[in-house]
């Protein structure tokens, strides 16, 4: 039998190649980055983004879109820098109930058959408001254990890479290997047939949103570990970043086609793209535009590789 790459594998090859090319370019521009210390500086801020991207991926797996992730991660960051440090029990309780609210949002969206975009848009205001109430001005401080975790120096590989690998593996196990993951992706692929097989779609959606909440909480905690303190607007851009990360990683908006490993790679790619640009030293007027250009180039690369793959598939 001819070796046939499954569509899942192809989905992964392309983002991985883009990341490699970008990494090579960064090393070429800035050889100093090619060290334990350099890699950590280059990639540690990708860790919370990767977690947020995985969170977004869970929601996208059930054909929804979460526009509240950025505000939610900011909210979590505020909780982490205040309650979780000063009163760990209360802080934990708040975070657990926040995950509960996330799951509840999934339930409401399903039961009332609402467009997820609008509900999560509304929720983003709610989370942002709660964050502003908690921290009207930036402040707070990361709990020591969080700070320790995010600045740990494991042997051989910097923390940023170790954490990325752990996130990818855990998410892969949940989404691609477990029964729950199959169910969640099944809902994205063909909701009606999953229902006909006797599963509860509400429960599946609640689980997907709950898992998204869980990973977003982890993102917020990791972020505070890196920044040492929080503010109410700290992660607003994670909403778009996480969507871009899922897409860069080979995920799709509909049909339950997602790839957790790809999503982590996508998040790393986005972070690296920013560094690549600062190493290029572009005129300040065009620095913002260059960010757009690099996104375009990375995605165009995806197209190119797609073409090559197609040609290979049809002899």
């Amino acid at each position, binding site marked *: 039998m001819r070796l046939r790459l499954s569509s899942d594998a192809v989905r992964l090859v392309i983002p991985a190649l883009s990341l490699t090319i970008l990494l090579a370019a960064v090393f070429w521009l800035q050889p100093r980055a090619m060290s334990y210390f350099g890699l950590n500086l280059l990639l540690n801020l990708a860790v919370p983004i990767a977690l947020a991207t995985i969170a977004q991926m869970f929601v996208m797996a059930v054909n929804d879109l979460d526009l509240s992730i950025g505000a939610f991660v900011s909210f979590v960051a505020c909780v982490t820098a205040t309650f979780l440090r000063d009163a760990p029990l209360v802080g934990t309780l708040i975070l657990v109930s926040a995950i509960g609210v996330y799951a509840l949002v999934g339930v409401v969206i399903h039961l009332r058959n609402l467009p997820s975009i609008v509900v999560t848009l509304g929720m983003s205001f709610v989370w942002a408001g709660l964050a502003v109430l908690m921290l009207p001005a930036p402040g707070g401080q990361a709990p020591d254990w969080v700070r320790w975790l995010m600045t740990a120096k494991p042997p051989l590989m910097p923390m940023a890479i170790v954490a990325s690998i752990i996130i990818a593996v855990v998410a892969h196990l949940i989404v691609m290997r477990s029964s729950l993951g199959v169910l969640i992706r099944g809902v994205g692929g063909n909701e009606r*047939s999953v229902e006909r097989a006797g599963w509860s779609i509400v429960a599946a959606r609640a689980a997907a949103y709950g898992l998204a909440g869980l990973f977003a909480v982890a993102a917020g905690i990791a972020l505070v570990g890196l920044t040492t303190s929080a503010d109410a607007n700290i992660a607003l851009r994670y909403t778009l970043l996480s969507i871009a990360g899922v897409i860069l990683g080979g995920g799709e908006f509909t049909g339950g086609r997602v790839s957790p490993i790809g999503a982590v790679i996508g998040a790393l790619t986005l972070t690296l793209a920013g560094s690549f640009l600062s190493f290029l030293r572009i005129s300040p007027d065009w620095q913002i535009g260059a960010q757009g250009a690099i996104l375009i180039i990375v995605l165009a690369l995806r197209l190119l590789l797609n073409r090559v793959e197609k040609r290979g598939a049809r002899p």
Partner: protein
Amino acid sequence: MAKDLTKAVIEIGGARVSFGAVKALDGVTLAVMPGECIGLVGHNGAGKSTIVNVINGGLTPQEGTVASDGERLDRYSITIARARGVRCVFQELSLSPNLSIVENTRIMHRELGGFGWRGRAAHVIEKSLDQVFPNHGISSSQTVGDLSIAERQMVEIAMAFSDAGIAPRLVILDEPTSSLDASLARQMLDHVRRFVAAGGSVIFISHILHEILETSDRIVVMKDGRVVAERPAAEFDHHSLVEAMGSVAREDALHRSARELAAAPVVIRHQAAGLAFTARQGEIVGLAGLAGHGQTDLLLALHASQSNSWWPRSDSLVTFVAGDRRLNGVFELWSILRNFSIASLGDLSRLSLVGTADEAARGGEWKRRIDIRTPDMDNAILSLSGGNQQKVLFARALATRAPVILMDDPMRGVDVGTKQEVYEIIRQEAAKGRTFIWYSTEMDEVRLCDRVYVFRERVITAELAGDAVTEANIITASFEVAAA
């Protein structure tokens, strides 16, 4: 089995279901005994799919009872039905295309969970596939989206017969063969007989009457939400069955009129691997061969070569009748009328404003001509039964002025009576000079064509014309490697 053989696996008593003003089921009573295959036939919209949905627990009738093994079930649901071994193959794809076959098996069998479920699921589905379709060539790790329609249907059928702890007792097949070619359909029907012989029950819905006649033990005929006839299969023949369904059987409809078209101008041609493809004015050209061997691709290529995706063309050469209506046929949010008129808006508009009066008039005309069963063309398209939706797509294409009509197995799920009417319309339009390029999985339809191209492995391997268009020739060509 120690169970009392006289007790029905499932018994529906006096079921009534209405959707708004439509009475989909009007007091249907149906008992399925162990070890029998019931053939369920009826025109499009007769209520067959609805009764199926009642039996599998997906739809609670507004009135009526459900009983199983002599015990009345008051709270019947999908879960209870599955626990009692009721399985269903739906017409529409009911696998998740983004999941692998193994993962779909996991979804279908809730009891498969626990550590190492992948191995068990693979074993379950492979065993069933091997049993139903020997030499199927499908690997259980493939993603369903990468399979052809026929392969997906095979997987679904195998899924319904698979046993992962709760053995299937009643398998409902709602037009399972619509995308299968003759040989695969044969394998499935043989398996149904084996299953029934071993004590299982089957409800088999099909518009291909010979399949029903040769496979069922008992035939139930439905019409307008009621059971109008119920007799052992041996007491029916093709003619009487069609009559029972309320259509007039026209034997002559299934005969091709010999026509001499060699002198007519060629209207469209295409060169891919294998023999060149041409079609002449007024010709009905068939595309045959095993399902999924490149026929649809040719139609798509012809369509793409003749249409412009940037600029509207009022004089398009081709129009298309979809077979996979969910995927590329129906606009689900729209009314029947809008679905019908979308391809001929150029003719119905002035200064690019749509003339709604013209549109309604044209819609009403085609509703009559092709008998779309609906009280009002402004109803949602999804309120139509599957077969009637297909008729709307047909009307959409015929109402355009395009001289070439591409048909992608468009009769899937269309009832016999309607088919005859459509054949007649095709014949008339062809006589007026329109060209039909017709991919079909049904031999009867292929035999209606003036000329037939046979596909194998995405290549045209044979061209049959005139009296050479016979079942034997087509089957031979389908299995032969290209002579060139």
